[in-house]
């Protein structure tokens, strides 16, 4: 045991107040992520003409940064978290605007901003920051009905969504909307409005089906596989079948040879093929554990801001994992979404690290917070 309970240094206090089980689960996910990046990315790198170890090198360079970020952020107090989130959120709005103006266009979308040799996806950072900002605005509104927190929050939401859809990046827009609506729901949104928002959300999806052709084609192919090219999803399904209970062994998979996004959107298929059912189930369990444990800690909170912020961050984390895994397993239409900590992707890794760092900071036991279980 490195620290005694009597240790009152910052590090000692952090160790005894932070949720060490969640910390362990995050560490496990990062380890699987490192393994799968090493297994899946050389095939992808080779195919697109890069050095075989290009993605591995970058992943292992960013991993210590992400770990440091989680640890540093998790040592913050709730107030520090809130202030950082507000400032970072404003920064993200600037970056999102800049992305639309100066971004690199890849496959018909402007999602990446090139800064000093690094490409940056601002959307990955705006998600956790907006979740905290929204939690703050909702909780203030609940504390003081005269404060127009909901109105401000809705306006900010509309701004963010407009910037993300303009890229266009519908998947991220779905996640941001889902998180925001979940938080609004928790913050006491009247039930008739909840119903109204659900209808609005559904009609938004239906609307995008009819107005955005690439969305329509993906949904068509999900509903009726014969209507178009379902090559990727079929290979993904095969990968899980081929992996069986124990997998073909790390590095022994085939699916990464044919799937263009084996290291990102379809990394879970690589996991299923190479590591097998039991490890894949263990990964699912790790995600579920982090989300549900965090939520159960949030439930015993007495502070509405913390409750909303933690829930928002965890809903974002959980939704991303569910959308990625659901796509690979053909439970939902294919949607490009990274699997937190497991997929390759610098911005995604750091964004998720920030989000979970804040979650850990907010779920730390505090005197009089009521989180004494």
């Amino acid at each position: 045991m490195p620290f005694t309970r009597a240790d009152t240094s910052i590090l000692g206090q952090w160790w005894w107040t932070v949720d060490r089980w969640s910390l362990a689960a995050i560490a496990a996910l990062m380890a699987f992520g490192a393994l799968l990046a090493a297994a899946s990315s050389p095939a992808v790198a080779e195919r697109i003409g890069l050095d075989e170890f290009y993605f591995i090198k970058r992943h292992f360079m960013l991993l210590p940064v992400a770990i440091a970020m989680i640890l540093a952020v998790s040592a913050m107090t709730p107030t520090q978290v809130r202030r950082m989130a507000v400032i970072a959120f404003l920064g993200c709005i600037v970056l999102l605007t800049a992305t639309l103006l100066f971004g690199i266009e890849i496959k018909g979308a402007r999602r990446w901003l090139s800064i000093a040799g690094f490409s940056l996806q601002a959307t990955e950072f705006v998600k956790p920051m907006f979740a905290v900002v929204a939690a703050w605005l909702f909780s203030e509104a609940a504390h003081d009905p005269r404060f127009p927190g909901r109105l401000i929050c809705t306006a900010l939401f509309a701004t963010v969504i407009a910037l993300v859809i303009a890229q266009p990046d519908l998947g991220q827009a779905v996640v941001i909307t889902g998180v925001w609506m979940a938080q609004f729901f928790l913050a006491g949104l009247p039930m008739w409005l909840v119903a109204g928002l659900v209808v609005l959300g559904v009609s938004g999806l239906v609307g995008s089906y009819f107005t955005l052709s690439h969305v329509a084609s993906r949904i068509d192919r999900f509903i009726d596989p014969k209507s178009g090219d379902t090559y990727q999803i079929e290979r993904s399904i095969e990968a899980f079948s081929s992996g069986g209970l124990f997998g073909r062994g790390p590095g022994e998979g085939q699916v990464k040879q044919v799937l263009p996004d084996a290291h990102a959107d379809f990394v879970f298929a690589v996991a299923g093929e190479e590591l097998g059912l039991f490890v894949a189930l263990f990964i699912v369990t790790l995600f579920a554990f982090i989300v549900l444990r965090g939520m159960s800690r949030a439930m015993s909170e007495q502070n509405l801001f913390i409750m909303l912020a933690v829930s928002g961050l965890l809903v974002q984390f959980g939704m991303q994992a569910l959308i990625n895994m659901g796509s690979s397993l053909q439970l939902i239409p294919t949607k490009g979404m990274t699997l937190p900590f497991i997929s390759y992707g610098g911005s995604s890794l750091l964004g998720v690290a920030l989000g979970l760092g804040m979650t850990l900071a907010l779920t730390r036991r505090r005197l009089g917070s009521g989180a004494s279980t």
Partner: protein
Amino acid sequence: MSDRIAFESTKKQAIETARTRLLVGGSLMAAAFFVVGVRLFDLAVFNENEDLRRAASREIARPTPMARADIVDRNGVLLATSLKTASLFADPRKIADPADTAHRLIEILPDLSEEVVAARLGSGKSFVWLRRNLTPRQQFEVNRLGIPGLEFEKEERRVYPHGRLAGHIVGFTNVDNVGLSGIEKSMDAAIAGAKTPLRLSIDIRVQQILRQELAGQIEKFKAIGGGGIVLDVESGEVVAMVSLPDFDPNAAGQAGADTRFNRMTLGVYELGSVFKIFNHAIALETGVATFASRYDATKPIRVARFTISDYHPKKSWLTVPEIFQHSSNIGSAKIALDIGSDDQRKYLGHLGLLRRTSIELPEQGLPMYPARWREINTMTISFGHGIAVSPLHLTSAVAAVVNGGILRPATLVEHDAKTTDGVQVFSAQTSDRMRRLLRLVVETGTGRNADAKGYLVGGKTGTAEKQVNGSYKRNALISSFVGVYPITAPRFVVFAMLDEPKGIKESYGYATGGWTAAPVVQGVVARMAPLFGIAPLDETAPDIRHAININAQPAIGNRSDAVN
């Protein structure tokens, strides 16, 4: 102050609401993760249907299934199968030292040429084949070299465990597993798509017996080749078919064209006196002659510049059975004149002798016969000259003569049903009479060498001069014998043929069907009958004598010194 209390209570209420609603949200999350887990389990464990549904377009993320089905004989003995092998290829862009790599590969694969390999490795292409189908040991050795850029492709190699024994029937494929001959070619698509082995009608044991008997006689009589067929008269199934010389389909590339030539289906020959079977059957069926009819065979027939004479002239009048027994060309030609050209042509057509056979082999010869069927043609065709058919044509037609008169399509694929539908060509009565005549030939005529004791063989010899460049060669013969057994209730037709046998001392210089081919049939019948549960019979038993009796007064007695 009251404001503050109100705020506090709103705050408390808001937290309570959030807590309740969080429980709902958390449950939804938990349910979603559970669904993902169930789906994972479903795919990894219960994936059978998915497999079958997608099996068609499958090459990645799954070990490749066998591309070609096995071929087995009627008892399930493996005739052709596929082995998984590894084929060596290289990415020359990754080969650092082509010369050294080539040198080290040659030590493992000595059949390759070092210059060729070095040239390929230095070509700068991104893909070159080095050698197909390595043995596991060779693959291990190449792997152990540890040279980057050498890689393996999983492939299949077709293997024929029985080698040359069924080479003409099974055929072979090219290196890409596309059928090039035999069943492999004719049923290529079916074999490539089948999940279960293709079961042929042949019996590899009978195949071996037939080949051994033939090879012995070919060697003895210094023939250039030969062949034989065993056909089930009820189902039309070919139980054995051999053409010698033969080839090993495992190394078909090295086989000469003459060894790949299937004399039984692709070769067409003037088969000579065996055709008298059809001439007599047509005569009895149409009623132009009976067993009691007599014909003048005292002197040769002269038509225009042709002379039809007998091999060993009896110089007397002969009954219809005697014409058959002594194989009289003169008598047969006179019977044919009574039948007439039209009926002869019609019946030969019904017997399938003027068209392609139905056998499942791509190697088939078409019958050759006169475009204008004149009287002279009618006469020569009656004793098997002026018409050329494949031995399978003949065997199939003979089966129709003896099985009650029904022509059934010859096949190499096993039938589930005992018998197949056929076309009635002759009446059962004609068939019965023909069986008596065939037995007469073996008991007292030219076919005594075919008499496998107890199995009641009936048959007919044939000795024809080969036509080479338009004229007949006196000493180049096609000597054959077609046998049927047991004659009282025929099960099999056994045909044997020798190509250019030479007379030897033991046969008094003769190389006729009776001396060369009939012993093959005798050997095959005696050895194969026990495999099919056919027990030897007492040939002197009254009911059998009755069944094969000829009720006709002999014109000259049952003399049996005829050789043709």
